[in-house]
Structure formats: structure tokens, C-alpha cells
């Protein structure tokens, strides 16, 4: 009467996840790069040569210097050149990444929480609540994101808080839809029925039982949405609707330089552009690998 099969202390879900994730070299490289970018964003004030927001420190005499040139008072070298206000591009890019990543992450977190709650509610409770939430999401998704963001920003004006609100308004519907579709599948499974039969409260079943099982697709969508939020913010700033000129994000830096692009002063636009590109690409690399790891159907055994 052997009831107990050999019981090995198996890896925790996190260990298994980490092993699968770092199985790909490209993804590992992307992850390392992403960590560096995030660290650069966090520690921008400590590592940048100049505070680009301190207008008193800027010297118009230093404007539009080529990469590698020294400032007029010879106190510093501009590794990536300066913009038309004499701002050190390297510092501006570091601060720009900081703002772009911050806006991308914060708007994603808020939109995720909002969309996830609404999506779970729609997936768990059918009927009118579901119909209402999902039709609003449908209407929202039928407009181009940039249009919605433009209208909102035109109404509310500039500012970090306003652009975050605009990005949340654009993004929540993706999460609501993804969560609902995952929740609809999971809700039919017997463990939810068993949880109901245990007399657990609906809120508990939703957040404790349903939610963790809906997370894998959401993590992938969220990772991809951080990248698209950063691009959207850059687009809006480029169009002059995003952040104020005193706190330039990457998009604004690109916009600042593009009029000088044809006159050979490439560095003002190109370097922030490369920073934006690398940031978005690394996030997408990591998100792609997340999708492969978290989707059992794509997994190679």
C-alpha cells in the first residue's frame, strides 16, 4: 500500500520561470541592457555631468557644440554635444530616459490595476456589468490611441500627471480585454467552482483564485505596453503636447533637434533617438521572451 510517490522538493514556480527565461541569450542580453537602462534612469542625477533642468547652469555660448567639444569655460567636455540652449546632451538623455521610463512604468501600473480590476469584474460577473465595461472598452479601442491622447492633452494641458492620465486612458482597455478573456476561460474551471462550493467570498475568489491564474498573459501585455507607452509619450512630446520644455523627455529632445538635422547638427536628434530605440527594443525583447516562457503552448520541452 504505497500511497506516497517519491516526493522531491520541486523548484518553486519562480525558479522554473527564471531557468526558462534565461535560456535564451538574446533575452538575457536584453534583460541586462534593460536593467542598465533602468539603473541609469534611477541614478540619472548622480551620474550625469550636468543638471539639464537648472537653466542657470546653461550657457548659450555652448549651444549646438559637436560631440567631444569642451565648454567655453573649459570646465567640462560634452561627450554627446549640446542642444540649442547649450545643454549637455548626455545629461539631457539620461534625464530624458528617467522621465520616459517613469511615465511608461507609472502609466502602465495604473492602467494595469484599473484594467485588471474591471476585466476581472467583467469576466466574473456576467450580465449588465460585463456588457457595460466591455462595450466601453470596445468604443475606446475603436479610436486610434494617439487621437484619444491628443484630445485629452489638448483639453487638460501639459504636465507629467496629465500625460500619465492620457496614457492610462489609452491603455486600460487592453488590460481589461486581456483579463476578461483569461478570466472567462479560468472561471469555467473546476477549482473556481470548488472555491465557490467552499463558501469563499466573491472578492476573494476574484482576486485570490481567479487573478493569479490570469496573470501570465497580463504580464506579457503589460511589458509590451510599457514600451508602447514610452513611444506614445515620445510621440506626444515630439508633437509638442507632452511634457513642458523645462523637463525634456526623449521625444521632446528629438523634436528640439530635428530642425537642425539637415544642417548637419545630427547629434541633437539622433542620440536621444537611439536612446529611445534601445529602450523600446530591449523592453520588447524581454516581453517577447516573457511571452514564450509564460505560454505553455510555445514552450519547447
Amino acid at each position, binding site marked *: 500500500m504505497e*500511497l506516497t510517490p517519491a516526493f522531491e522538493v*520541486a523548484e518553486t514556480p519562480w525558479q522554473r520561470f527564471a531557468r526558462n527565461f534565461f535560456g535564451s541569450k538574446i533575452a538575457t542580453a536584453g534583460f541586462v541592457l534593460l536593467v542598465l537602462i533602468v539603473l541609469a534612469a534611477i541614478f540619472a542625477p548622480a551620474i550625469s555631468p550636468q543638471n539639464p533642468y537648472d537653466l542657470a547652469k546653461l550657457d548659450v555660448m555652448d549651444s549646438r557644440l559637436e560631440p567631444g567639444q569642451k565648454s567655453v569655460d573649459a570646465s567640462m567636455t560634452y561627450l554627446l554635444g549640446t542642444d540649442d540652449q547649450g545643454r549637455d546632451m548626455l545629461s539631457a538623455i539620461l534625464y530624458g530616459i528617467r522621465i520616459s521610463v517613469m511615465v511608461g512604468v507609472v502609466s502602465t501600473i495604473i492602467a494595469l490595476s484599473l484594467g485588471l480590476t474591471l476585466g476581472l469584474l467583467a469576466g466574473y460577473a456576467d450580465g449588465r456589468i460585463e456588457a457595460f465595461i466591455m462595450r466601453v472598452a470596445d468604443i475606446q479601442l475603436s479610436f486610434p490611441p494617439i487621437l484619444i491622447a491628443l484630445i485629452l492633452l489638448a483639453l487638460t494641458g501639459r504636465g507629467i500627471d496629465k500625460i500619465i492620465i492620457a496614457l492610462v486612458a489609452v491603455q486600460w482597455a487592453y488590460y481589461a480585454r486581456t483579463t476578461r478573456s483569461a478570466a472567462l476561460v479560468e472561471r469555467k474551471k*473546476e*477549482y473556481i*467552482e*470548488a472555491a465557490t462550493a*467552499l*463558501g469563499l467570498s466573491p472578492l476573494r475568489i476574484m482576486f485570490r*483564485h481567479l487573478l*493569479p491564474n490570469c496573470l501570465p498573459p497580463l504580464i506579457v501585455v503589460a511589458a509590451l505596453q510599457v514600451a508602447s507607452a514610452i513611444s506614445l509619450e515620445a510621440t506626444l512630446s515630439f508633437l509638442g503636447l507632452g511634457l513642458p520644455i523645462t523637463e525634456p523627455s526623449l521625444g521632446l529632445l528629438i523634436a528640439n533637434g530635428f530642425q537642425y538635422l539637415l544642417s548637419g547638427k545630427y547629434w541633437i536628434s539622433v542620440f536621444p533617438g537611439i536612446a529611445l530605440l534601445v529602450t523600446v527594443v530591449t523592453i520588447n525583447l524581454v516581453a517577447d521572451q516573457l511571452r514564450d516562457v509564460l505560454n505553455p503552448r510555445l514552450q519547447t520541452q
Partner: protein
Amino acid sequence: MDNTTTLVVNNLQTQFATRAGLVKAVDQVSFSVKRGEIMGLVGESGSGKSMTGYSIMGLVDAPGKIVGGEILLQGKNLRDLPAEAMRKIRGNRIAMIFQDPMMTLNPVLRIDTQMMEAVRAHQDVSRMVAREMSREALVRVGIASPDERLQAYPHQFSGGMRQRVAIAIALLNQPDLIICDEPTTALDVTIQGQILYEMQKLCRESGTALIWITHDLSVVAGLADTVSVMYAGRIVESGTVQQVLDHPRHPYTYGLIASAPSRNPRGQPLQQIPGMTPSLLNLPDGCAFRTRCAHATAECQQTPQLREVEQRMLRCFHPLRDSVAEVVS
């Protein structure tokens, strides 16, 4: 009613209003279960046996609805209770064990989390106490090294082990009634035997009443005290296991028993009930079984009522005699 009766179901009717028409999934079902008694609820797929279980739990999903009858748990009609009070009864006074143990535990939560949650949903105890109760419940269902097991995830368990955990969870709050919806169907016969034995023992010890929903007559024969046979949403025959299984009086019960493979008439073709289970959407008038019944007469176009025949309840105009029934056994 005396104190020893745990559950009385009276004329329970559960219906589904579908586009194609009204489906009477559970039609005028009545039975009762005493403390420590095990009732087998037997029938083919779609006979309404599982829906009877869900109706008692108050877990009938739309478009289904309980439209009539009473469900008395220790004299209190569960149908009168508001939703919140019914939730307090589920998992506490009535527990349910499901068919597929692979699916009934949440794959992302550890066993201790799931068990402690079940305790704390109904009892105001600390996490430490809840954990200790969970540990004891695992020991009670025969799980070795419960401390390690508590910290494991469901995927680290075999099917039989998971069903033991599911049973342990059902036992946590010492319910008055446990409804088992084919809990051993997905398991090996050896594991099934162990689980049946343990469930029987646990029920007798704790006085928990048990409703065992199954299509397997041999399980009922070995486990249950009483048996109710369902066909097309109605109970066609019910009584003690000895009476009903050894001396079936309803042609359907007889057909079920005869179609189970046994080793006596070895090599001979198995008997089967001709035809298919009728769709609940268009049942024949009168006795739902008459189109498949060898004994049907014109009288069977009237609906037979449940009446007492030879120490059991029977819904048939033409009770079989033993000489016919004993051909198979």
C-alpha cells in the same frame, strides 16, 4: 422529523429555460439522508444527478433555476436563505467534492494556503490554529508527512493524493453533509477502494451524512446504505442498497445492473438497454423510460407516481418480479 435526519429534499425541481425550450433537469426529486448515512445517487450522464447536488449547494448557474420544492438541512429550508447566508453554509455545513481532482485545487496556490483559507472563511481562528487544523485533516485522510505536503503545490501530488486533499478540505469545517460528485471516477480502482473505505469510516465516525453521486453501481453496492436511481431528472427507484440492487423492481434499475460487466456469464454478450437516453428537451409523455422499456404498455403513457412497493419507492406501473431480475445475478 427526528434529529437524526440531516437532509430532506422534497419535490425539488430545477429547470433550465433555454432557447430550445424548458429543460427539467431535476423533476420532483425527493429523498432524505440520516446522520452518518451514505446515499448513492445513481444514473447515466444527463440524468440530473449532478444537478441535484448543485441544487442542494445552491450553485445552479443561470439560466438554471430551482423552481419548486424544499431542501431542508436539519429542518431549515435552504431555499429561504438569502445568498450571503447560503454562502456561510457552503463549505461549512455542506461540503462538496468534485469529480476531477486534477482540476479542483487551484494550481498556483500552495496546499496550506488553500486549506487555511477554507478554515478561515467560516471560523474566526488565527493562522496558526487554521494551519494546525489543516495538518490534522491531512493526517485524517491518510497523507504521510503532512508538514511537507502542506507546503507543496497541487502539481506535486498524484491524482489520488489530490483527491485526498480535496476530501481533507471538505472535512475541515466538520460539515453535516458532504456531496461527492463522482469523486473516484478519475482514479485507479485500487486508489478508489482506499478512498471509499476511508470516506465510509470518516462518515461513520463523525456522523456526517454523505450523498455519493456516481454512475458506478459497484461503488454504490460496496459503499452506500441507501440508493436512489435517477432517470431523465426523476428518481425512478429508491430504497436500501440490498433491496434495490439485489431485487430491482424498476426495469431501468434492472437494465443498469444487467449492463454492468460481471464474471458470471463469461463470454456472453452483455445485456444493454436499447436506445439512447432521451433528450431532456423532448421527453416522451408519461414514463420517460417507456420508449426503451421491454415491459411498456399503453398505461405507461400516463406519468407514473412515486409509490411504495416492496419496501422501496418506485415510479413504475409494472414492477418486475424477482424471477426476471435474478437472471443476471
